């Protein structure tokens, strides 16, 4: 069985190639695949009819308890036979119907994939496997419905079908998982025995609703029936196969399959009966709104599906009639509906229209198709001597046994419409004139309908042929052994009377049809499809609204959201705890620092009121300077130096850029909301800090660094030893960032000068500023800078080399060196400054990082980890890899910053050029 399923999938995958190879004959060859499978399943008939259930299992995803497990009993076997049997005819039929279509190879592929999935679905034992197959059928049918994808209607119908069935699928998945959790197993065969446990579980009702949702959407039950007629946009073979015989019955299959586990409760029966009946009547009613053959058949399918669901709901309430009626009606419907769809397609193919009001006299030109239609219509009308009659009879018996009278009455009404439809279908074959040049299609087009309809007749005449399998089916649905004798002639009883009534009503309706139809078409009742469309439109509107609200494009809005979220979440956490932590021990208050802090805050607040950009930069600079001084007063010399240098460099960079921007724009004023958000955030940070300070600080890390810095790190500047040894990896990342920033600035500015010189609309305005890139062309500065340059380079090397022991180090040293070059560039121009450096600065970034990286490798030789410090004594001087690493830092920072400054200068010079 597992093999059969895999063969089905693999066989499907060969279809496009086979088609390319064999051309139009491919259909006949490909039909061998379903046919072979049908034969295989037929060979299993004796076992199954004998009461055996076959089970094969293959571990698939054992970590989730998912098995590729298959289970074959009467119910699955009937479905498997239908799928493969009808599938074979459909494949043949497709070859004729879509002859010469450019996408036929693809079509074969998808329809065979569909068949394989459907087969997997009805054979699956594991709920996940079942669900996988379930979704695969939705998916393949999506591709099939959208086969004529250049039409908008097809695309819409495909998406609609996908959405409805996949949406239901999700409900189903949830329901199935709940069942598995409740029953403690993912195997349906095991769940079936636990009906009692499941029904008494508190989650029974939600699980049931979810499963029903899945089944109802798939099987087009009211109110989800609307997608099915729309799906008639698909080519006819698809409609015939998916929408009559197989896929839509997947929901019915599932309900029947789970009946022994879920059935037996009040809810189950009433839900299924009510919705089944509603569907039956909906399908019947909507029949009046169309004259398109395929649509008529589609509504009839809806009605039949309703009847099947109704029957399943009856199963627990009757002894065996309902189960047996299910078995009989299911097969009957598959045979006649498959045949009718194919016949309708053949008519359309040959006559060019499917409108029953336009057709006439077809029997003369299409006799074989005509025979098939007549036989199938008999079954549809529920007339003897065909299987449809038997199915409907047993159904009536079951309904009379357990359903309320009003339900029976409504069912009769629904079936009467079926009888009317049968008349509607048959009449065009006999009345009127055939259209010009219409003739019987090729065998591929009439073979299927004829055989299926013939089969209906055969089984109607000799129901005993089907009886053993029907018993097995009914047993599976009922959950206990059922033995019933199917008879064509049950004798006179109430059910027969109802049948008669049905037919009479049907004939009556046939005559009323034109009037009823006119009424229904002119005054269409808003159906659930309108609901679906409104939902989708509403969804799209909601989506647009949400997006407009959230994704406004304004940076400030994004930031406000972020801060609001932040303040909200952190505030929530603080409120939630409800306690305010206050530090108990703090260090002595230092007046100098307090003065400094007050000034910083004051300066910052003053800056908020300024209307000049650079002025603001300058004022905010005092915050930076204040922090630097504070660092100094708190005994952090390296920090203080770095802070000063970095603040200055930042200010210089901003000035350098502002210099090149012509239209800076006004400094906009702040808004109250901003102030609220900002103060909220600031307040929270203060609260968090107070909380943090209320905790004692564990100093194990710093004590370790202080202890080991000299004896094992060979440096007296503990901060620097942390940077280049204890936490050198941080520094590595840090200089990578610096290098990247240099690369980034270079790339940003370079791209412009290379690529968009012509199409930059702003060039005209920028070039109006003269001399932007000019130097401070003064003799005094030029003379001083010559001297200062050498001095600064020397100082920078000095700072680099002694950094391990005293304030300094690679970063500070590099900044000083950059300062030297910047000074020289200020005084003498970019070109002159460039001449003082023999390599390109960006190359230095690479070299510096490479040196830093290489300094991490010597430890490999002593089998110590990455970056472990190795120290050597060369001529009495202690040299270690951390020192070499610091040289890498120096070069990287130097190269990156210089590259950025040079690129900026160059961009200024380029702007200046006319």
């Amino acid at each position: 069985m597992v093999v059969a399923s895999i063969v089905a999938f693999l066989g499907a995958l060969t279809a496009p190639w086979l088609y390319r190879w064999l051309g139009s004959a491919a259909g006949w060859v490909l039909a061998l695949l379903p046919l072979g499978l049908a034969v295989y399943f037929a060979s299993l008939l004796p076992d199954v009819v004998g009461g055996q259930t076959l089970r094969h299992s293959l571990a698939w995803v054992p970590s989730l308890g998912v098995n590729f497990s298959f289970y074959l009993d009467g119910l699955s076997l009937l479905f498997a036979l239908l799928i493969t049997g009808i599938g074979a005819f459909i494949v043949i039929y497709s070859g004729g119907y879509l002859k010469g279509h450019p996408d036929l190879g693809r079509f074969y592929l998808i329809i065979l994939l569909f068949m394989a999935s459907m087969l997997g679905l009805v054979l699956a034992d594991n709920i996940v496997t079942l669900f996988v197959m379930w979704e695969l059928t939705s998916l393949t049918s999506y591709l099939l419905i959208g086969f004529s994808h250049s039409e908008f209607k097809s695309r819409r119908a495909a998406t609609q079908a996908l959405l409805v069935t996949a949406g239901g699928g999700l409900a189903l998945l949830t329901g199935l998982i709940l069942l598995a959790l409740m029953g403690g197993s993912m195997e349906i065969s095991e769940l079936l025995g636990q009906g009692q446990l499941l029904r008494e579980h508190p989650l029974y009702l939600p699980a049931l609703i979810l499963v029903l949702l899945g089944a109802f959407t798939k099987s087009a039950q009211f109110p989800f029936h609307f997608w099915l007629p729309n799906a008639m946009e698909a080519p006819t073979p698809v409609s015939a196969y998916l929408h009559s015989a197989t896929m839509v019955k997947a929901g019915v299959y599932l309900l029947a399959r789970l009946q022994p586990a879920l059935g037996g409760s009040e809810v189950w029966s009433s839900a299924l009966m009510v919705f089944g009946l509603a569907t039956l009547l909906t399908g019947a009613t909507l029949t009046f709104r169309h004259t398109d053959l395929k649509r008529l058949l589609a509504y009839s399918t809806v009605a039949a599906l309703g009847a099947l669901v109704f029957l399943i709901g009856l199963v627990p309430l009757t002894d065996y009639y309902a189960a047996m009626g299910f078995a009989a009606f299911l097969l009957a419907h598959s045979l006649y509906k498959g045949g009718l769809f194919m016949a309708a397609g053949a008519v359309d193919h040959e006559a060019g229209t499917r409108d029953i009001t336009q057709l006439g006299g077809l029997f003369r030109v299409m006799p074989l198709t005509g025979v098939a239609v007549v036989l199938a219509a008999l079954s549809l009308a529920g007339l003897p001597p065909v299987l449809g009659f038997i199915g409907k009879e047993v159904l009536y018996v079951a309904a009379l046994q357990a359903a309320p009278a009003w339900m029976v009455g409504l069912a009769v009404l629904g079936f009467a419409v079926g009888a009317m439809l049968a008349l509607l279908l048959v009449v065009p074959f006999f009345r009127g004139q055939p259209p010009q040049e219409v003739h019987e299609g090729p065998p591929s087009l009439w073979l299927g309908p004829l055989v299926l309809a013939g089969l209906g007749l055969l089984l109607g005449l000799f129901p005993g042929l089907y009886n053993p399998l029907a018993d097995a089916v009914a047993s599976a649905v009922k959950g206990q052994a059922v033995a019933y004798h199917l008879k064509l002639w049950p004798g006179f009883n109430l059910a027969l009377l109802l049948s008669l009534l049905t037919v009479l009503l049907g004939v009556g309706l046939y005559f009323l049809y034109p009037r009823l139809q006119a009424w229904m078409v002119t005054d269409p009742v808003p159906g659930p499809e309108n609901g679906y469309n409104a939902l989708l439109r509403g969804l799209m509107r909601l989506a647009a609204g949400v997006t407009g609200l959230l994704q406004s494009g304004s940076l400030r809005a994004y930031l406000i959201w972020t801060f609001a979220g932040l303040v909200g979440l952190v505030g929530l956490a603080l409120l939630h705890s409800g306690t305010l932590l206050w530090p108990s021990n703090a260090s002595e208050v230092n007046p100098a620092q307090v003065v400094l802090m007050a000034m910083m805050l004051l300066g910052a607040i003053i800056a908020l009121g300024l209307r000049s950009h650079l002025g603001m930069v300058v004022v905010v600079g005092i915050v930076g300077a204040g922090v630097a001084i504070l660092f100094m007063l708190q005994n952090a010399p390296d920090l203080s130096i770095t802070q000063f240098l970095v603040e200055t460099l930042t200010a210089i960079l901003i000035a350098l850029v502002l210099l090149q921007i012509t239209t800076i724009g006004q400094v906009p004023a702040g808004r109250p909301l901003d102030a609220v958000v900002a103060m909220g955030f600031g307040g929270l940070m203060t609260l968090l800090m107070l909380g943090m300070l209320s905790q004692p600080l564990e100093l194990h890390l710093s004590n370790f660094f202080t202890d080991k810095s000299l004896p094992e790190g060979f440096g007296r500047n503990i901060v620097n030893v942390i940077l280049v040894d204890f936490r050198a990896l941080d520094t590595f990342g840090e200089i990578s960032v610096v290098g990247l920033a240099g690369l980034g600035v270079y790339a940003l500015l370079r791209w412009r000068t290379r690529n968009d010189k012509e199409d930059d609309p702003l060039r005209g305005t920028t070039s109006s500023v003269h001399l932007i890139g000019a130097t401070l062309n003064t003799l005094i500065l030029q003379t001083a800078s010559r001297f200062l340059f050498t001095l600064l380079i020397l100082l920078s090397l000095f700072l680099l080399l002694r950094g391990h022991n005293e304030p300094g180090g690679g970063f500070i040293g590099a900044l000083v060196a950059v300062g030297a070059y910047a000074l020289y560039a200020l005084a003498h121009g970019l070109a002159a400054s460039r001449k003082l450096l023999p390599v390109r600065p960006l190359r230095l970034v690479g070299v510096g990082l490479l040196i830093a990286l290489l300094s991490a490798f010597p430890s490999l030789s002593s089998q110590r980890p990455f970056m472990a410090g190795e120290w050597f004594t060369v001529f009495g001087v202690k040299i270690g890899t951390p020192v070499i690493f610091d040289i890498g830092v120096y070069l990287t920072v130097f190269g990156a910053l210089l590259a950025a400054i040079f690129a900026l200068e160059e961009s200024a010079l380029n702007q200046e050029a006319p």
Partner: protein
Amino acid sequence: MSWLIVLPLIIPLTTALLCLVVPYRRAQRYFSLVGALALLAAALTLLNQVGQRGISAVQISDWQAPFGITFVADHLSALMVVVTGIVALAVALYALAANDTAREALGYYALTNFLLVGVNGAFLTGDLFNLYVWFEVLLLSSFVLMVLGGDKAQLSGGVKYFAVSLLSSVLFLSAVGLLYGATGALNLADLATRVQEVPTGLLSALAMLFLVAFGLKAAVFPFFFWLPASYPAPPAMISALFAGLLTKVGVYALIRVFTLLFTHETAFTHSVILWIAGLTLLLGVLSALAQGEIRRILSFQLVSHIGYMLMGLGILTPLALTGSVFYALNHMIIISALFLIAGLIYRLQGTGVLVSLGGLYRSHPWLAVLFLLPALSLAGIPPFSGFWAKLTLVTAGLQAEQYWIVAAALLVGLLTLLSMGIVFAEAFWKNPPPKSYRFTPGATGGWFALTLPIAGLVLLSVGIGLWADPLLRLSQTAAQELLDPSQYIQVVLGVSR
């Protein structure tokens, strides 16, 4: 072994530096390819080692934890690094075929490799401050990559991406400082042993600060706006890399700290995560539906699906975390593939705007297959890889009786399907627009070279779907390690406190 853990850092770093130092473009291309291959090989070896020997750690610079910086490879880290290697290789191949010489000249290869350095560093480091540093490395390289080329969309998106990232950096930094000030520790394992002494309220507030800082990077509601504003702008090879890797680093960090550090009050913290997950899921997918351009749709989908990863974290059961990990790994592969496909579509028809696209189903059936498979996987349709992630998460959610998040997760799956369905209907099914564009292959690589890496990713994803057990098992192990941090702490600190 100790060097093996740092190889995922060293390899891209070396590659990047070689590309910086050697100016010849052909050499850089060669470095880039060899580097990506080597990275993948190293990552796989690492995963194998971790599988055999359990969590492994190396003390960088040979300073015993918690004093130095520790690199730790557990299953989560190793898996993330492996998938990073895969995505990197695919994108490297695509870039070779795309042959964007202008970007190459401005350091494309160095930048992407630096990005990988940052990503892998973030995945492997066992130190909170070091994590900050790697975040910055990957951020800066991504900034540059983002704006490289500097057209309007890139710059306007890049500015937002940059601005929001700055904010997240500052928040992260402050959060690290506060946590240090409250515990005295930076090493994650060390922190894990010390956070219990911090008062619950304070710790929860700090946890929220980390949630926001990482949430900004992971692009969750209400912090995701920068992503759709910027990701659609750069060329496919760059946005694919971003989409695959960057947000996942944020997700990884969230998973790490909310399993290792902040498990003191899950009723509060993880409920918040669940809410965020749900809102991200729903609002992300809704916004995706309001887009008419493929890469913008994908960007919002990317956002939305981060919600799934958080969902597992919020539920915090073994199964749920398994789902999160699996989802993240799977998502990295498929979203990269989808962005690359969007790039191909752009090359084919000169636009990504849906109404101007069409006819690809007929003209490029293989592209349709390549699109459909990851798209369905994204929507969680079985038997594709995304389904297993969703199945795991949904099961976990039902087990934990978190019904509304399960409902949101399922609904989002459906809406994702709708969104992908719209793309398929418009770009593939609909008739092509009257205007015809010409395929613009790279100078060195044609159609085949461009599709090869995509096909690789898609095949991998299909493979994961059909044979989900190995990856699920690994994710399960990762989840177990996360939920019981004692082994992690033991390995890093050498003692179990």
